[in-house]
């Protein structure tokens, strides 16, 4: 890769590889990527697990009444998601709290780890976000039918609308229901990927001496924005999960 760029610069042109940071590579050499091959995806996911364990398990090991800093952050995350589940999805959704907490912690940790220079952002891959969104979609659908039986279909039958409109609305509702996992997953991966790619593009411009100060400022600004996006997208993913869960538990409009 480096030799490529070098060659291009010799040629006098600018070459951007903003998407190279997303390439999945085997961790220990070789070309073939089997389903079990440890790759950079594996590495950064393991780091996410380590970070989560460090924060929520090691950080709280003293069980202090007056919390330490790491314990405070852990409690803050716990309270934040717990309250979100309770407020948005209802009291009976609290048994799904560990599941939603898992999603939130994974996404927010992966997003922030992805902001480290030279890192690999697992949540920028549709393979990851689509699986996350499908897990939510399947959970919500299954829970909806188990809890409410056929009554779950009442979600698509807007009883407050005039009778003539209801079939049309039902079709729209049905379509929007199945579009949910698509928007749910593409929103997260798209936001993360776009920000990282834009930073890389600005970094590419830094090769021109005249532009480089502007480029550095722009990268700094983008990075600040990305820090915000990293949290907000995790938040959005989680709160949408709660909203969908509420639909499953209480399908009446």
């Amino acid at each position, binding site marked *: *890769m480096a*030799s*490529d760029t*070098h*060659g*291009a610069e*010799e*040629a006098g042109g600018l*070459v951007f590889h903003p*998407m*190279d940071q*997303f*390439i*999945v590579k085997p961790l220990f050499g070789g070309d073939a*990527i*089997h*389903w*079990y*091959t440890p*790759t950079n*995806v*594996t590495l950064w*996911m*393991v780091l*996410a*697990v380590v970070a*989560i*364990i460090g924060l*929520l*398990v090691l950080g*709280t090991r003293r*069980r*202090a*009444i007056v*919390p330490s800093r790491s*314990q405070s952050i*852990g*409690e803050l995350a*716990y*309270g934040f998601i717990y309250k979100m589940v309770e407020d948005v999805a209802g009291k009976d959704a609290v048994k799904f*709290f*560990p*599941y939603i*907490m*898992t*999603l939130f*912690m*994974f996404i927010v940790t992966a997003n922030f780890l992805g902001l480290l220079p030279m890192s690999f952002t*697992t949540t*920028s*891959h*549709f*393979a*990851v976000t689509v*699986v*996350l969104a499908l*897990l939510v979609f399947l959970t919500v659908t299954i829970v909806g039918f188990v809890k409410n039986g056929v009554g779950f279909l009442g979600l698509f039958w807007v009883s407050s609308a005039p009778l003539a409109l209801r079939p049309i609305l039902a079709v729209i509702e049905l379509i929007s229901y199945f579009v949910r996992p698509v928007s749910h997953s593409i929103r997260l*991966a798209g936001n993360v*990927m776009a920000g990282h790619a834009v930073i890389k593009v600005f970094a590419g411009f830094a090769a021109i001496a005249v532009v480089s100060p502007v480029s550095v400022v722009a990268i700094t600004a983008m990075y600040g924005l990305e820090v915000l996006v990293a949290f907000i997208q995790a938040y959005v993913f989680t709160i949408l999960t709660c909203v969908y869960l509420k639909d499953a538990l209480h399908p009446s409009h």
Partner: protein
Amino acid sequence: MASTTSEATSHAADAAHAASAPGMPQLDFSNWGNQIFWLLVTLVVIYFVLSRIALPRIAAVLAERQGTITNDIAAAEELKAKAVEAEDAYNKALADARAEAQRIVAEAKAEIQAELDAATAQADAEIAAKAAESEKAISAIRAGALESIREVAGDTAGEIVSALGGETDAKAVTAAIEARMKG
């Protein structure tokens, strides 16, 4: 990538690179299986760590803290009630003491007044007695003086009459003196 020695090979390498991978590595479906496998492993590990260790622990800590806070607040309320009670007792004692003091002052005043009245009355009685006594003495003196006048007048009149060579008629002198004294 192949080492590039000239512009041409560089372009060739770029072209090869572009051809081998699509524009977005995200859409290279050949490694989706790998990513999904590792994602599921990660999620399962996080889920078990959270649901078995981290979340119950944090919940316990939060509950314990809530309990501590509730207890402390209850204890504070109790102490506050006690303080209010003590203040009430203090105020009551103060009011009692004030009333007692007022009662004592009034009592003393009444006592003094009674003593004063008694002393005044006694003094009045004494003064009255003395006055009466004096009056008696004065009247006695006055009576004594009249008698003396009468005597002196009688004697003097007798002497004058005898000196003039008359016969002293004691009866007539006395009668004349009585008439004069009345007149």
